């Protein structure tokens, strides 16, 4: 065992890449849940984003146009969910699960002619000056555009939820839709927008998998990332920065345990494989316990259908 064989700069850089799909999808779901809707279809929206992004990316030769297509595809699929639960008032849990199954199936169908095709070239953006700092430069300043965008999204969503009136309205709809309704806010419209935003973010997260992280299309390639994103939202107590930390811990331990294995560390590997999940849960539980005791941040109307009374 020789720790010096691990390249920690590369390790941090790869943990950021590994976590980015989770960050993106989970941020979208956070907004959806803050509006009082539980969409369990994240996995389905991610995979549809992955396949649509890959197809468009290959056809246009641009990974970034592919990412736009991924967002559109995720949003389109979420429209279906929005219609079913907001207009038809169907059960959110069942509809979300159905969305996942539907997404996985249709993605496999769409992607069939695209297995075994090379993905378009991607360029990383080295931030001038900063990227030349030894170690730190490799870690943080030589990534693709999407990584930077994911960090900006965390900041933006935090600002939106805590500092903007629109964010307050969104949260009030999620806390108590009847009160929000009686105050004159359009509960259905706001939830509709939140769901579509969540779909687009999940789509982008999926597109990042197929266009940047792996990068290729294979059936079932999300392999449960959508479920981890869902769990992150809950464990982070619906807070964007904790969500980011949680995602990075998850990605970090995942990459670290691979590195430890490769240098031949004598630790039970089943424990190592379990470590990302344990560490993420533990870390987020500890954060939530120490401050803001009692305030878990769960929206009051999460998962409940809104029936217009008047």
């Amino acid at each position, binding site marked *: 065992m020789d720790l010096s*064989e*691990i*390249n920690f700069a*590369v*390790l941090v850089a*790869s943990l950021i890449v*590994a976590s980015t799909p989770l960050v993106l999808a989970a941020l979208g779901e956070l907004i959806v849940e803050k509006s009082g809707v539980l969409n*369990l279809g994240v996995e389905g929206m991610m995979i549809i984003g992955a396949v649509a992004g890959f197809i468009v990316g290959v056809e246009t030769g641009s990974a970034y146009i592919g990412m736009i297509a991924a967002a559109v595809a995720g949003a389109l699929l979420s429209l279906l969910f929005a219609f079913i639960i907001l207009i038809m008032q169907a059960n959110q849990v069942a509809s979300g*699960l159905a969305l*996942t*199954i539907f997404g996985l199936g249709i993605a*496999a169908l769409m*992607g*069939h002619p695209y*297995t*075994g*095709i*090379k*993905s378009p070239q991607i360029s990383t953006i080295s931030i001038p000056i900063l990227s030349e700092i030894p170690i730190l430069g490799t870690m943080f300043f030589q990534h693709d555009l999407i990584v930077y965008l994911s960090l900006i999204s965390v900041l933006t969503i935090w600002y939106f939820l805590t500092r903007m009136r629109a964010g307050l309205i969104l949260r009030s709809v999620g806390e108590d839709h009847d009160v929000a309704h009686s105050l004159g806010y359009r509960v259905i419209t706001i939830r509709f927008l939140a769901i579509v935003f969540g779909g687009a973010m999940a789509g982008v997260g999926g597109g990042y*998998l197929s266009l940047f*992280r*792996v*990068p*290729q299309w*294979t*059936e*079932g*390639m999300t*392999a449960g*990332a959508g*479920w981890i994103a*869902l*769990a992150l939202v809950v464990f982070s107590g619906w807070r964007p920065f904790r969500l980011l930390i949680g995602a990075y811990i998850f990605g970090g331990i*995942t*990459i670290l345990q*691979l*590195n430890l*294995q*490769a*240098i*031949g560390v*004598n630790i*039970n*590997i*089943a424990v190592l*494989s379990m470590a990302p999940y344990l560490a993420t849960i533990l870390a987020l539980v500890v954060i939530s316990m120490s401050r803001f005791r009692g305030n878990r941040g769960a929206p009051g109307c999460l998962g409940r259908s809104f029936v217009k009374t008047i």
Partner: protein
Amino acid sequence: MKRVIKFLSASFIFAVMVLNANLAISADYKVGFIYIGPPGDHGWNYQHDVGRKAVDEAFGGKVETVFQENVPESADAERVMTQMALAGADMIFATSFGYMDPVINVAKKFPKVKFEHATGYKTADNVSTYSARFYEGRSVVGHIAGKMTKSNTIGYVASFPIPEVVRGINSAYLAAKKANPNVEFKVIWIFTWYDPAKEADAAKTLISQGADVILQHVDSSAIMTVAEEAGVYAFGQASDMSAFGPNAHLTAIINGWAPYYVEKVKQGMAGTWKGGEQTFDGIGAGMVIIGDLNDKIPASVKKEAMAIRDGIAAGTLHSFTGPINKQDGSPWLKAGETADVGTLLGMNFYVEGIEGDIPK
């Protein structure tokens, strides 16, 4: 969450099976296949599906095949096979190691249905097993890897610590060590057969630690894509994967199930099929095929690799020929002695020179 997923996949599988049951009514002989992942993986499952299609073709309309993809290695597998048997399947191919106990359980309930289980070791009156000597192919790729590495570090992405995978690591290591005494193996276990993102992460990690040739015993082609991008070498697993990395792809160990499947279905129809048999074929029988060699491999190495392949096929060469010690230094094979099938099928130790432990 897990329970929800389980419930979901169960109901989904049930729905699909009902559909399949309705479809499979016309032919005289019905054969079912269950796959651990999607046939579109261009790896393990893809080749089983190639075998299934060969059965379709060989018997025309007389045989009808049905398949179920993404079947978990759990009670779900029992449910799927039970449903297939109820729907009139005469023979079922269960194509992953973890279906072993489910196969035995379902076989008890349906004594008239013939079961063929891939890579397992439990048999019954109506259960036979079949496996390929993939380790023979790994001798060939191990040799090429040993010759092609410049950093003398070879990465190995492994799935589960079962004898089949351990055998592959040992075989590749012995061949690489013989070709290049300075090689070192770095092994990462990812505890999944198919997770492109995890496989890619493992490959990237190995590359960041200096590996310039990556071997894999997992099913997707993600590692090939990563290798191509990083400018290192890799080998196709189960299928030819050169489309994913024309420069990285040195060759592939291709699984040739088709002749076996056609033969077994023929026996099943003729009534000559026997349970309790354990087929273990390799390069000689065409169950393991070495793919095209990349032109990046020097002609001399190509020649040596082909000589190893042909020697194994002819039976003059064995991947495990003594003297070989176990990892702890205790002797395993005396000079000139070759490994017996029993030890190979249950192999749970590294040979001398490999570092690290096999997870338990």
